[in-house]
Structures are given as structure tokens and as C-alpha cells.
């Protein structure tokens, strides 16, 4: 019983991190129909911000989190202005952006690796290797903090989208870009801001990841497929779906790992994706497609 509880806790702990990693991706897809394959490499960038803050000045990664968010948001603004703003007008937009962001994933990877080498890094605040023990069940502190921060950020984002004026604009743009434009929403600005928010979330996720996982620039490939699975599973563009999928799958993966071995546990995400494609192609929270 303690075992089961323990695995559940470990699964949930990882789930929190994946949830935040996936949330930004989902937001950007939802609003802009960009499948941002560069998202994991941007998370990596956030992780490096936190890493160097810690390494050079001893700043705690959680304290560095806002800095990472700002830097990444700025990157987002730049990227949007230079690339996606003009891309948005192209006819093959959706599939074009997949390939384009793939290219940028390579650019960021190359840039990070050139700047920081491909040496594996991890920030080492004390809590990252600490845990709270309750009887013989433990809660890893690093992941607990990461999970809490992630929930706070996702919650704030959800509230913002639901109630703020700008949130309205974002939701409206998601549902009908042209109509929003005609009602006085500067859709380009909405795109810009949501892209920046999405990337800020990547920055935040990066700061948290920096002490939960070890990382090096080319590691983002390992994250891409996992995060993408979450987004499809949750239903493309549904942030809630992504978060729920992140938690469910992390827990399932933890159990699979425990009962069937580590190798199969990494398979969980992808096999789940295929099962979902078979039984519910639109994902947990997605819209049913027109043709059955």
C-alpha cells in the first residue's frame, strides 16, 4: 500500500513538471495554430538561464524563474515579429509552422550548444536532492516545489484567460480569428502576446526543469515527443486537457515503470497516444472532427 502511494506521489510529482512544460505549447497551439516544435528547446533556454543564475551568482532557480520568463517572453516577441507574423498570412500556415519551428528547434539547440557546450547540466539547490518523509513514504522536495509553482502559474493563466479582457480577446481569436479582428481585436497583437506568454511559460518550465531533470542542448528532442503526446492526448489546444493528460500519464508511467520496468515506462506516453488515436482521435478534451 505504501508502495502504491509512493508511486502515485512520484507520478504526480513529475506530472506537475510536464503539465507546465506542455501548457505553453498548448496555449500557443490553441491561439495561433502553431505546433511549436521549438518549445522544448526554449524550455532548455529557460533552464540555462536558471543554471547560470545559480552557477554564477548562487541565485535559487525558483527565484530565477521570473527572469527566465522575461527573457523567454522577449525571445517570443522577437521570434513572432521576425517570423510568425508574416507566416500567419501564408496559406499552408499550419503545416508550414511545424517545419519552421522544427528548424528553429535546431537553431536554438545549435546556439545553446555553441554557447554552453553539450555538457550535461543540472542546478543543485539543496532541496533538489531532499525529500519530506512521512513514515516510509517520501515526497521529493524539488518536484513538490516545481509542482506547486507550476499549478500556481497554470491556475493564474486559466483565470486570466477566463476573466480578463485580454483573455476574452485570446479566446475569441482562438475561435474565430477573422471575426475577432472585425470586432476590434488586434489579432496580431493577441498573437504576439499569447506567443510571448507561451514562451514565458517555457521559461518558467525551464527554470523548474533545471533542478528536476538534467539537461543539455540536444536533450530537447527527448522532450518533444513526450510533450507533443500530451498535447494530442489532451486535445489539441486545450490547456486543461494537456494538464490533465500530463498528470494522468505521469502517474501511469510511474506505475508502468514500477511493474514493468523503466524502458516500458518511457513507452507509456507514446502507446497512450496511439490508443487515443484509435478510440478517441480528438483527444480527451478535443472537438470531434466532422467526418466520422
Amino acid at each position, binding site marked *: 500500500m505504501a508502495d502504491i502511494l509512493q508511486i502515485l506521489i512520484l507520478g504526480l510529482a513529475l506530472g506537475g513538471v510536464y503539465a507546465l512544460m506542455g501548457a505553453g505549447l498548448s496555449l500557443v497551439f490553441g491561439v495561433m495554430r502553431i505546433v511549436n516544435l521549438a518549445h522544448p528547446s526554449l524550455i532548455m533556454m529557460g533552464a540555462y538561464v536558471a543554471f547560470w543564475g545559480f552557477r554564477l551568482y548562487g541565485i535559487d532557480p525558483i527565484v530565477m524563474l521570473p527572469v527566465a520568463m522575461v527573457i523567454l517572453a522577449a525571445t517570443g516577441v522577437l521570434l513572432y515579429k521576425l517570423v510568425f507574423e508574416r507566416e500567419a498570412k501564408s496559406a499552408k500556415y499550419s503545416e508550414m509552422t511545424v517545419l519552421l519551428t522544427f528548424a528553429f528547434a535546431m537553431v536554438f539547440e545549435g546556439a545553446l550548444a555553441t554557447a554552453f557546450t553539450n555538457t550535461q547540466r543540472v542546478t543543485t539547490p539543496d532541496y533538489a536532492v531532499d525529500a519530506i518523509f512521512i513514515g516510509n513514504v517520501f515526497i521529493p522536495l524539488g518536484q513538490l516545489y516545481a509542482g506547486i509553482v507550476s499549478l500556481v502559474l497554470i491556475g493564474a493563466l486559466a483565470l486570466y484567460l477566463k476573466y480578463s479582457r485580454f483573455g476574452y480577446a485570446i479566446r*475569441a481569436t482562438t*475561435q474565430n480569428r*477573422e*471575426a475577432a*479582428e472585425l*470586432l*476590434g481585436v*488586434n489579432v496580431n497583437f493577441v498573437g504576439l502576446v499569447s506567443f510571448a506568454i507561451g514562451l514565458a511559460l517555457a521559461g518558467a518550465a525551464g527554470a523548474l526543469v533545471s533542478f528536476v531533470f538534467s539537461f543539455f542542448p540536444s536533450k530537447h528532442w527527448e522532450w518533444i515527443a513526450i510533450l507533443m503526446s500530451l498535447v494530442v492526448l489532451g486535445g489539441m489546444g486545450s490547456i486543461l486537457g494537456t494538464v490533465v493528460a500530463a498528470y494522468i500519464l505521469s502517474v501511469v508511467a510511474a506505475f508502468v515503470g514500477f511493474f514493468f520496468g523503466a524502458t516500458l515506462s518511457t513507452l507509456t506516453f507514446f502507446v497512450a497516444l496511439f490508443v487515443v488515436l484509435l478510440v478517441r482521435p480528438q483527444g480527451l478534451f478535443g472537438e470531434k472532427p466532422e467526418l466520422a
Partner: protein
Amino acid sequence: MSLLTVKNVVAGYGDGPAILNGASVDVQPGKVHCIIGPNGAGKSTLLKAICGMLKIRSGEVTFKGESLKGLRPDQVLRKGICFVPQERALFPKMTVRENLRMGGFSMTDKRLLEKRIDEIEERFPILKERRDQHAGTMSGGQQQTLSMARTMILRPEIVMLDEPSLGLAPKIVQEIFDIIRVMAADGITILIVEQNALMGLRCADWGVVLDLGRTLFEGPAEEVLADPRIREAYLGAKKAA
């Protein structure tokens, strides 16, 4: 004095060929204007060019003496020109009330917005009845009512409607044109594009025939309606026997 002047506008999609080749329209305040023309003449294109969705390559669009060229749709809207496109421009997963609220997105005064919404709901009871229903699940006619009602929230000076009667049942078509008259009576200037040309022109004060990307005829609606050339070329009347 005309409220909105479109003069020799040339415009097209992307870097494709010019679709409009010198279209001109004079919009008089408080009147209903109806643009007719064959399919592919560029009627929708003209409205899109006015509201800033398309780049105007040459020619002039002036609103109260100010040029609208180069403005974004949201900026044109703020000037007081509202456009309801051919495909109903609703937010399908927002409720009716949220849709109305989006209509006033560019308003800063929240209380005024709520007041206007209440007024609109008074005038169109169906919207009050369905206020919490998702717009996407309403019937075509209801959706059209909603999108037109929504434009009235801003009290714009000009409303441009692209084929408001398209695909609507005869009973609803009647209602839609009634609403247009109501809006006009409220002092809103109206510019509609209609294929249901008979009804459109009957409802209008001023008629415009757009073809080949240009304005071919322009005049009081009754005159346009009565012109035998127009009747045959555009209104489907058999060759005068």
C-alpha cells in the same frame, strides 16, 4: 455630403491579380445602400478593402474626410465602421452573451457596455432567451440575428453587411430586412451586398452595380431596379419580350 467615399480603388489578395479595378461608391449618411453584381464581381472584396482586411493598392477610401488607407480592421472599427462578413462571424464556443460582450470589445466603459447589451436584449428577445446558449449551436437565422445585433452595441456610424440573407429561410429573410430598416431608422448608415437583389434593392435607398471589379451603375434604388439593362443582366429577368 457623403460620409464614406470610395474612389477608384484597386485591390487584390496577397500578390495575386487585382480583383478591384477602380471601384467607387459614395455613401450618404443615414441611408441604406445595396451593392449588387454577378458572382465574382468583387463585392465582398470591396467591403474587405474598406474595413482594412485587404491592402488597397491604389485609389482612395475616405471616411469623414479622413483616409482609411493602411489602417488595420480594429482601427477602422474604432472609427465607427462595422463589418459583418459573409460567413457568420461568431465565436461558436462562447455564449450569446459573451458574444455580445465581444461586440463591445473596443469599448472601454464597462457600464455603458452592459447597458447597451440590455437594450439589445430588449429589442431582440430571442437573444435574451438564449443568452447562455453557445452561439455555435443556434440555427442559421438566430446566428445571423446575433451577429447583426452585435454590431449595434458599438453604435457604429456605418454597418457593412455581406449577404445578410444568404441561406436564410424566407421568413427570416423578411425579419433581417426589417432589422436593417430598424437600424437605418436609428440613424445608422448601412451598406449591404446582396444576391437577393430584388429584396435588397427594395429595402435600400441607393443601388450600386459592381461588375468587372468596377462600379458600372449607381443611382437611387428604384431607378436601378427599374433599369431594363440591369434587370436583364443582373436581376435574372428574361429578355424583354
